[in-house]
């Protein structure tokens, strides 16, 4: 609690004590009641009065200080002394709660996004570590990262190996093994042993700073709901104030014409009630706060949303389109199965792995990786790589040919076509065909679950766009239960296809596209909401998209939409609740059923409730 808040709290307590004392002394009957009530009134309201007067001088007549000033003075004028003090008292209590709630949520959000490193250990010429501000570290400097510390700047490991915790960036605590020459990004926590890192990016350019910057500035991209509210607030206050004036003078005027009792005081009291309700603060604060909470919560789950507007659009997603390679599949080739083996599968793999052991081709490497055992270099006599076809070599004492159909045909070895059209490596030993291996891009473990969850949440259609062969695309689509699939698309065809889908759908339905952010950047830019994936450490991917998934888990798409939906639900709850209560109180006030007490609730009470509700947007644990 800061000094300001403590002072207000003390004033509130003293004011309450005075009011209670007055009550027991039956002060209302006293002839000097007016003067006696001025004491607590001034005590509780002096700052508001000063602000109101300053406002009047500067021509700001519609601010809330002015309204509270008029309402409370009015109550005094009508002889409702304790009510006048109460109006101010409750207003101050409400303000106190409000600033507490906002301070608390600010703190919560900054704790959630606690990836900003506070210090770095910079090594000097004598190899001694000095604790410095990360801003002072330059590119090329060597820093020391101790166990339990955050990596302060992006860089390359030059000494040591360790395990990193990326949870603060990805929302998932998956340990990451790192060793010499590995690139590491700021914001990760070093968990195992001390690392020496050569800095490759200045602090402002480092991942942690960039992400924080992104999230903090996200609410600058305002959503329709926020714009609606600021427009509403601009009209609401003047209209209610006008209503108050009419309420004060019109009915007495009619009474005058009809020759009835004027009842001027009654209507004046009702008019003052109006003024108390006229502040739009509950709306103005709770809507941006809900969005801010939603964005903060999402970033905690490893999802960066670049603006409230994108969160709003994302919540209306009805079509989800995605790329295949790297999005739904791992984008890494793996040996998936063996066919027509004349020898055992293990033997087939062993010969293929030995033949491919010097290859830099991803297919060759995938075979060596699958084999997994150490290659005994002694048993490799010669290997010749034939570009685009395969390898021919003498390994394990035998002539081995491993490659595509054409390579084997060139060597006069007859092979049969396989029913499966995926990438195939045929193997021949001593000029005899012994079987083939299928190399396929494997589907990510959560892809299927993600598609299922999308359908369950009411997504109308899931669509896959890929440059891959139709057959492969269809197989993946069938396996994952994807509604529509378009294969063999060149990058520009992907865009035109997406445009066609966007045209054909209902205009209010939103289409989200998820891709890897590097090859798909133009498609991501064209979609209603562009989502890039696996963005950890990739600037291009972060740049291109509206929503960024920090790791490459496709289920994060579901989480992102769920967070957006929850946030927007809270936003609408707050809009309806705050406007609804205010209108009800205005009607009750006009009819004389609402006292100033109720009016105070309609003002500060609603605000506190709306703020508390908005904070819920921050909590997304159960949506993961």
């Amino acid at each position, binding site marked *: 609690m800061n000094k300001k808040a403590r002072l207000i709290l003390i004033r509130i307590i003293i004011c309450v004590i005075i009011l209670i004392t007055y009550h027991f002394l039956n002060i209302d009957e006293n002839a000097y009641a007016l003067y006696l009530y001025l004491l607590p009134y001034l005590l509780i309201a002096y700052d508001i009065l000063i602000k109101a007067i300053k406002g009047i001088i500067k021509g700001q007549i519609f*601010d809330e200080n002015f309204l509270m000033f008029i309402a409370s003075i009015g109550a005094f004028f009508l002889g409702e002394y304790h009510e006048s003090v109460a109006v101010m008292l409750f207003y101050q209590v409400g303000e106190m709660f409000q600033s507490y709630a*906002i301070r608390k949520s600010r703190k919560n959000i900054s704790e959630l996004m606690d990836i900003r490193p506070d210090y770095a250990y910079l090594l000097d010429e004598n190899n001694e570590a000095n604790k410095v501000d990360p801003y002072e570290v330059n590119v090329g400097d060597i820093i020391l990262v101790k166990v339990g510390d955050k990596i302060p700047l992006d860089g390359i490991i030059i000494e040591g190996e360790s395990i990193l915790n990326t949870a603060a960036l990805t929302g998932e605590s998956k340990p990451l093994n790192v060793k010499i020459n590995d690139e590491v990004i700021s914001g990760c926590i070093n968990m195992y042993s001390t690392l020496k890192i050569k800095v490759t990016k200045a602090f402002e350019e480092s991942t942690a700073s960039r992400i924080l910057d992104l999230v903090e500035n996200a609410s600058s991209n305002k959503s329709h709901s926020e714009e609606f509210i600021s427009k509403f607030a601009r009209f609401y206050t003047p209209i209610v104030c006008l209503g108050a004036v009419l309420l004060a003078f019109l009915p007495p005027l009619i009474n005058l014409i009809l020759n009835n009792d004027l009842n001027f005081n009654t209507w004046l009291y009702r008019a003052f009630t109006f003024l108390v309700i006229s502040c739009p603060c509950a709306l103005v604060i709770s809507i941006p706060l809900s969005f801010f909470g939603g964005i903060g919560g999402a970033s905690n789950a490893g999802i960066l949303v670049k603006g409230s507007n994108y969160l709003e659009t994302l919540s209306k997603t009805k079509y989800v389109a995605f790329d295949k390679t790297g999005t739904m599949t791992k984008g890494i080739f793996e040996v998936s199965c063996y066919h027509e083996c004349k020898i055992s599968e293990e033997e087939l793999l062993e010969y293929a792995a030995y033949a491919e052991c010097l290859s830099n081709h991803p297919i060759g490497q995938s075979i060596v990786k699958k084999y997994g055992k150490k290659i005994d270099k002694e048993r490799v006599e010669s290997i010749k790589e034939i570009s685009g076809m395969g390898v021919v070599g003498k390994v394990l004492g035998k002539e081995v040919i491993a490659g595509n159909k054409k390579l084997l045909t060139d060597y006069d070895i007859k092979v049969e076509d396989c029913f499966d059209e995926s990438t195939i490596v045929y193997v021949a030993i001593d000029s005899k065909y012994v079987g083939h291996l299928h190399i396929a891009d494997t589907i990510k473990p959560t892809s299927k679950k993600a598609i299922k969850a999308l359908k369950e949440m009411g997504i109308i259609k899931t669509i896959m766009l890929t440059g891959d062969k139709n057959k492969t695309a269809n197989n993946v689509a069938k396996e994952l239960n994807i509604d529509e699939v378009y294969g063999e698309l060149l990058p520009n065809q992907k865009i035109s296809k997406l445009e066609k889908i966007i045209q054909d759908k209902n205009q209010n339905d939103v289409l989200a596209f998820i891709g890897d952010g590097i090859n798909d950047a133009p498609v991501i830019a064209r979609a209603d909401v562009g989502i890039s994936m696996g963005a950890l450490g990739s600037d291009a991917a972060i740049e291109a998209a509206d929503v960024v998934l920090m790791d490459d888990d496709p289920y994060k798409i579901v989480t992102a939409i769920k967070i957006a939906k929850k946030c927007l639900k809270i936003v609408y709850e707050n809009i309806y609740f705050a406007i609804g209560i205010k209108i009800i109180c205005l009607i009750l006030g006009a009819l004389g059923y609402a006292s100033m007490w109720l009016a105070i609730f309609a003002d500060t009470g609603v605000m506190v409730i709306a703020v508390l509700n908005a904070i819920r947007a921050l909590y997304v644990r159960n949506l993961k």
Partner: protein
Amino acid sequence: MKKTYKIDVDCANCANKMQEAAKKTEGVKDAVVNFMTLKMIVEFEEGTDEKEVMKNILKNCKKVEDDCEIYL
């Protein structure tokens, strides 16, 4: 030219008012006030003296909301 400034203000509506006041200041192309992070992002017009402009922004903001601060 875009710059971010730390601000201090008590209520959300006041923050909106500050934003409006800043936008209307001469030499300002666009201004956004973020109440949650208590930051003001000002985009200056080409060839303006930002220090001078910021002084005017502060003056205009003080006019609409007495109880505010921009840390220059």
